[in-house]
């Protein structure tokens, strides 16, 4: 097993599995979040469920955090190893001639997403934890929608979210389809899978950006 994890191919599978897991999480997260625009009541119901269901809180949430940590720690490890493998850099290296920019800069798009996750955690997770366990406030199952909308009142936060979603889109533009290649999937369905992955990579982050902008432009005035 330790031999497995020191192998380059196994590391790539870890990268791919954790990345794909995050892709599924993203789809689920988006499905709930979009209800904050469509129907605030549904959003409150789901948010309350996610916030207080013990399975979600104590089983799924730790798995998600582990998934994120494994993914970016492995990402850093691979990046360092890859830089070492070149040794001396070329005086002239025309990387753009043979590979797309997004595929060569996964570490940078990933780093922006990681920085965003820090902010996002602070905004929502830390807030929830102090609500529930520090201030020990009574649960109001209808609070989520107003809290979320209020978060997007500051222009700077909305802009940071939108920028991060653009970088997330670039990360997935390469990463989603790449994860399948890493796990050995490359067959007659691959062109169709790639198309789907690219649509996903644009639509989901764009959708998240739309939600942030929508709440910024439609503050609750009551």
């Amino acid at each position, binding site marked *: 097993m330790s031999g*497995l994890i*020191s*192998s*380059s*191919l*196994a*590391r*790539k*599978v870890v990268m791919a599995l954790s990345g794909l897991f995050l892709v599924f999480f993203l789809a689920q997260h988006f499905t709930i979040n979009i209800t904050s625009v469509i129907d605030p009541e549904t959003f409150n119901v789901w948010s309350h469920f996610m916030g207080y269901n013990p399975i979600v809180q104590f089983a799924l949430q730790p798995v998600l955090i582990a998934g994120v940590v494994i993914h970016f720690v492995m990402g850093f490890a*691979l990046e360092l*190893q*890859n830089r*070492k*493998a*070149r*040794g*001396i*850099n*070329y*005086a*002239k*290296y*025309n*990387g753009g*001639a*043979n*590979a*797309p920019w997004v*595929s*060569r800069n*996964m570490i940078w798009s990933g780093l922006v997403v990681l920085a965003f996750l820090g902010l996002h955690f602070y905004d929502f997770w830390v807030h929830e934890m102090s609500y529930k366990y520090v201030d020990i406030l009574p649960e109001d199952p209808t609070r989520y929608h107003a809290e979320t909308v209020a978060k997007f009142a500051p222009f700077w936060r909305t802009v940071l979210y939108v920028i991060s979603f653009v970088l997330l889109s670039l990360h997935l533009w*390469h990463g989603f389809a*790449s994860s399948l*290649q*890493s*796990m*050995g*999937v*490359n067959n007659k369905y691959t062109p169709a899978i790639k198309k789907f992955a690219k649509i996903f990579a644009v639509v989901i982050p764009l959708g998240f950006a739309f939600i942030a902008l929508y709440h910024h432009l439609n503050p609750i005035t009551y």
Partner: protein
Amino acid sequence: MKLYLKIWRQKNAESKGSMVEYTLDGIENDMSFLEMLDVLNEGLINKGEEPVEFDHDCREGICGTCSLMINGRPHGPDSRVSACQLHMRSFKDGDSIVIEPWRAKAFPIVKDLIVDRSAFDRIQQAGGYISVNTSGRPVDANAIPIEKELADASFAAATCIGCGACVAACKNASAMLFTSAKVSQFALLPQGQVEASERVLNMVRQMDLEGFGNCTNTGACEVECPKGISLENIARMNREYLSASVKG
């Protein structure tokens, strides 16, 4: 045509190298890239200077020895050719050309533009073979029927000439395309099944030991490979590796 060359010069494996500039005149369109370097070297020798050392053998695109990073691309700007098959008509009068050796920790520099690619040999030795009895009662290879598509895919993988352009092009100096071609040429054939698991495990282990990077699936290798070896081979190697690991 007149050219402004910038070439990596390095006395030996231990010394520190640097880029050296040369101006070269009288180059003709029909010369190959290596002939252009021959002209440069003739001039240097006549002046009593050390010629630029570069690897070459067949000069017809089949041996894979010519290994030149030309203006930031392995084997230069043309696709599906090795450096010896690149012609000066791909350049124009007054061009600057930067010429460097393959850069990879696993390919140490021997001198100037020559690198030591024996890491590839060791990957091959780790499993790039099949065991066949050669004496007694030899069996005709054609006695085993093989689907045409599989035979073609195996042959396509076997056209890899071990040049190392894939490593040179890859931002991670990964040798996955080479290794996967050498795994695939056997994995696709019944003759390769006996040693299939050990083969992929051992070859990947050796590839890692040599210090090549990991694959990010950028596809640079496939674009720069003079033989058009496909990324499908890397996916096949990943599958072979996963199933061999699960089997134990």
